[in-house]
């Protein structure tokens, strides 16, 4: 027995005795491990499409200015200077940025206006194929007046010019990327070992984790936390397990409510609640399932859509699935959007009126099977939902139950996420339960999702209303001040709600988890870890792992 225990004892000895002494102490120690569900695709901002890459870009690459905690996108109110120490409007279409002369690339050279001009060219080059290129279409040119002055020239005047100029582009090092052929950027070596100008510099990227180290010469102030690591996990559940087991320190959102008490039981973790930038809804397909050239035999009828909308008790569903962690939104929007409070009212929950509308429209149960029909067509719909979402699965079941009492038959099609997305894009569904993560503003996506311009793109249900498009133009392009913008947006949302192209189901609050030894935690709803460089771990709360040198 004693002999059998020897290898175990030797292992323990190795594990405990073979470590070099930890030696960091003071204000600039600390290691933070983020649990990440998956891996980044590439660390080259224009060609990356993953949310995790964006989190890492936040630490490595700077913008000219960044959005404030209020997420205001109209004008430049609340925006924080970053690479640009100041800016001014030369005329109504020309915006001039003055770069901070202290800014430098992590390999030495200063950040110049030439880098800014280069970045704009790269983002808008079709060969680079950046997903931000369509959003930058309002900007005609970016030029360097001198090494520290970048001039943006716009094609037209609209409320979110400043936001468009600064939010979508992270400035890139021209001296390192100019020689890389643009059509090779999608798999460029630079994207596996980037050099930036942000508070953290790249250290290593393995299949298991990615590490960044604080740049002690960062011109806006030395970051307090010295090492940032992203531990890649295959899925959300494993990520939460890593947090509870104290192998990770932070996760941006806990997802569905059952995870919250599980994490609360781990004493080392603190929860932070913040407005979500995502929402989910019941999307109606107004064209025939699988044939976008024909109207849907049931859902192209506005009365039917309104009836179904009024038969879904959104508030009760939300409470049932999310408790107090989400709200039933007044329109297709997340809580973080400023239009949340413009005062629109969605159709009320009223099953009597819903039944009356259907009956008046000719949908009655003629054969007594519990399902309404009209002209030989059953009021039966296929509802697609992705297998990856437990909350939407529950919603599908609850909606099926609620609509059954109205005489509407719902067949649930659960498919894997990729197939689900493909079906949405191809119009292969009657109804579906998509969820969207959004930018801080409705302007950049609303037209793509609810107007004819979005057909074949993100307007999966092919809804269109010329009146709404006119109102949307007023809201996004011609509103002169916040009050008139709010009025215009209310008109847009009222029109949308009356047409009922979907049922707005839930807009969650996010609950982030961060180890309780971390102080000064600030989480910006649109970009969770953007302010990590301002967080700190007080010296008296440092753990052994915080002091470890690489």
């Amino acid at each position, binding site marked *: 027995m004693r002999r059998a225990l020897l290898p175990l004892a030797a292992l323990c000895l190795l594990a405990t005795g073979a470590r070099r002494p930890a030696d960091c102490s003071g204000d600039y120690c600390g290691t933070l491990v983020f649990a990440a569900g998956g891996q980044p695709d590439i660390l080259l901002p224009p060609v990356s499409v993953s949310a995790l890459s964006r989190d890492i870009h936040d630490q490595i690459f700077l913008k000219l200015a960044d959005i404030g905690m209020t997420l205001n996108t109209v004008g430049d109110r609340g925006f924080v200077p970053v690479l640009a120490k100041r800016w001014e409007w030369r005329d109504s279409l020309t915006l001039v940025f003055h770069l901070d002369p202290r800014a430098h690339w992590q390999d030495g050279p200063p950040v110049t206006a030439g880098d800014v001009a280069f970045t704009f060219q790269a983002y808008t080059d079709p060969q680079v194929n950046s997903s931000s290129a369509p959003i930058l279409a309002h900007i005609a040119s970016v030029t360097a007046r001198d090494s520290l002055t970048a001039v943006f020239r716009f094609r037209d005047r609209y409320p979110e010019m400043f936001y468009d100029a600064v939010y979508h582009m992270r400035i890139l090092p021209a001296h390192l990327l100019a020689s890389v052929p643009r059509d090779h950027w999608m798999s460029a070596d630079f994207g596996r070992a980037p050099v930036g100008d942000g508070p953290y510099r790249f250290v290593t990227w*393995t299949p298991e984790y990615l590490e960044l180290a604080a740049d002690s010469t960062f011109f806006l102030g030395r970051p307090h936390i010295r090492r940032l690591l992203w*531990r890649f996990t295959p899925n959300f559940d494993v990520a939460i*397990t890593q947090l509870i*087991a104290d192998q990770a320190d932070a996760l941006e959102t806990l997802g569905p409510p059952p995870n919250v008490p599980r994490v609360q039981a781990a004493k080392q973790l603190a929860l932070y609640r913040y407005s979500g930038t995502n929402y989910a809804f019941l999307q109606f397909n107004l064209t025939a399932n699988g044939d976008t050239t024909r109207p849907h035999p049931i859902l192209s009828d506005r009365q039917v859509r309104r009836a179904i909308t009024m038969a879904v008790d959104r508030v009760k569903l939300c409470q049932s699935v999310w408790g107090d962690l989400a709200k039933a939104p007044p329109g297709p929007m997340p809580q973080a959007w400023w239009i949340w409070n413009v005062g629109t009212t969605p159709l009320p929950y009223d099953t009597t009126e819903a039944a009356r509308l259907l009956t008046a429209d000719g949908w009655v149960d003629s054969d007594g099977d519990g399902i309404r029909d009209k002209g030989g067509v059953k009021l039966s719909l296929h509802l697609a939902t992705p297998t990856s979402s437990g909350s939407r699965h529950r919603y599908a079941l609850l909606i099926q139950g609620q609509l059954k009492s109205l005489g509407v038959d719902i067949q649930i099609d659960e498919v894997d996420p*990729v197939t689900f997305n493909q079906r949405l894009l191809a119009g292969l569904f009657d109804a579906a339960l998509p969820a969207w993560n959004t930018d801080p503003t409705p302007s950049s996506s609303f037209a793509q999702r609810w107007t004819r311009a979005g057909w074949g793109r993100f307007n999966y249900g092919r809804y269109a209303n010329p009146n709404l498009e006119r109102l949307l133009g007023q809201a996004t392009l011609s509103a002169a001040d916040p009050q008139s913008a709010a009025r215009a947006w209310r008109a847009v949302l009222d029109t949308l709600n009356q047409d009922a192209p979907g049922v707005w189901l839930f807009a969650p609050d996010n609950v982030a988890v961060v180890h309780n030894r971390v102080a000064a935690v600030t989480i910006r709803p649109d970009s969770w870890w953007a302010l990590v460089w301002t967080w700190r771990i007080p010296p008296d709360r440092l753990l052994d792992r915080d002091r*470890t040198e690489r």
Partner: protein
Amino acid sequence: MGTWLARRLIAAVAIVFAVVTLTFFLMHLGPASPIVPSAEQPLDPDVVARLRQQFGTDQALSVQYVRYLTQLAHGNLAVSFSQRRPVAAALADAIPNTIVLAGAALLVDFGLGLLLGVVMAARARSRLDAGLGNATLFLRSVPTFWLALIVILVFGERLHWFPVGGTIDIVRHHSFSFLGRIADRLWHLALPALTLGVVGAAGTARFQRNATLDALSADYVRTARAKGVTERRIVAVHALRNALLPAITLFGLALPFLLTGAVLIETVFAWPGMGKLAADAIFSRDYPVVLACALAASVMVVAGNLAADVLYAVADPRIRITERDRA
């Protein structure tokens, strides 16, 4: 032996080719095409179309197939859609981790399995035999992923005895001395290797019990007993040596089991090996990575079986004589 080996090698190449071809076409028969943007984080369809063009997935299937085979013949496994780097680099990162995990699991599988099998045979029809028989039957019956979750819950989440995932302590590994790094790796390997190995060991033990019982009833064992050889020596030397022959076949069959099991174990334990790579690639429709994983797995399985056949031929002269006679 040379002709026999050449024939087996040609068959092995044909099997690998068939696996790659089948995987290629089955993937494309699936319900979704690659590079479909997430509905949660939509991409402009024009951007998606250009990405498809860049990756060549907009071409006819036959063109893609011929191009893939041509690339493969030149040792090029293409570029991963999701990782944006050569697939060969992704595989090179993943395969060593899978070999370490599968190797350790194989050690547990055969080390523990053979030991338990011999003990059960030596104490046949005793309470110990019955108890071990039931325990191995239970372990053989439970789904590997369920066992992995229980193990994580008990030894990782509750007791904190072992890490719940990964191959190293990512924060401190580089600060350890050489011996410390080895210990760190072993500490992280313990739970996944034991989980994967114990399930295999349960099957091996039951198999080995019967093989040993057969050997113990053979004439040469009776002769050894008549000569006064101790029971321990009879079991350990006379019976075990002969009962090991069928285990070699089992060894060849264990590789596919370990590789398929590794897909689940690597996913649950966040072990960055080939199984996790393949699982991620399947869910993201990263065809080049799926194909490369199928290729690598089939090569490993075919090579494992080939090795088992060769070992069997080396260990059992009757096999060689039969093959030579046939030749």
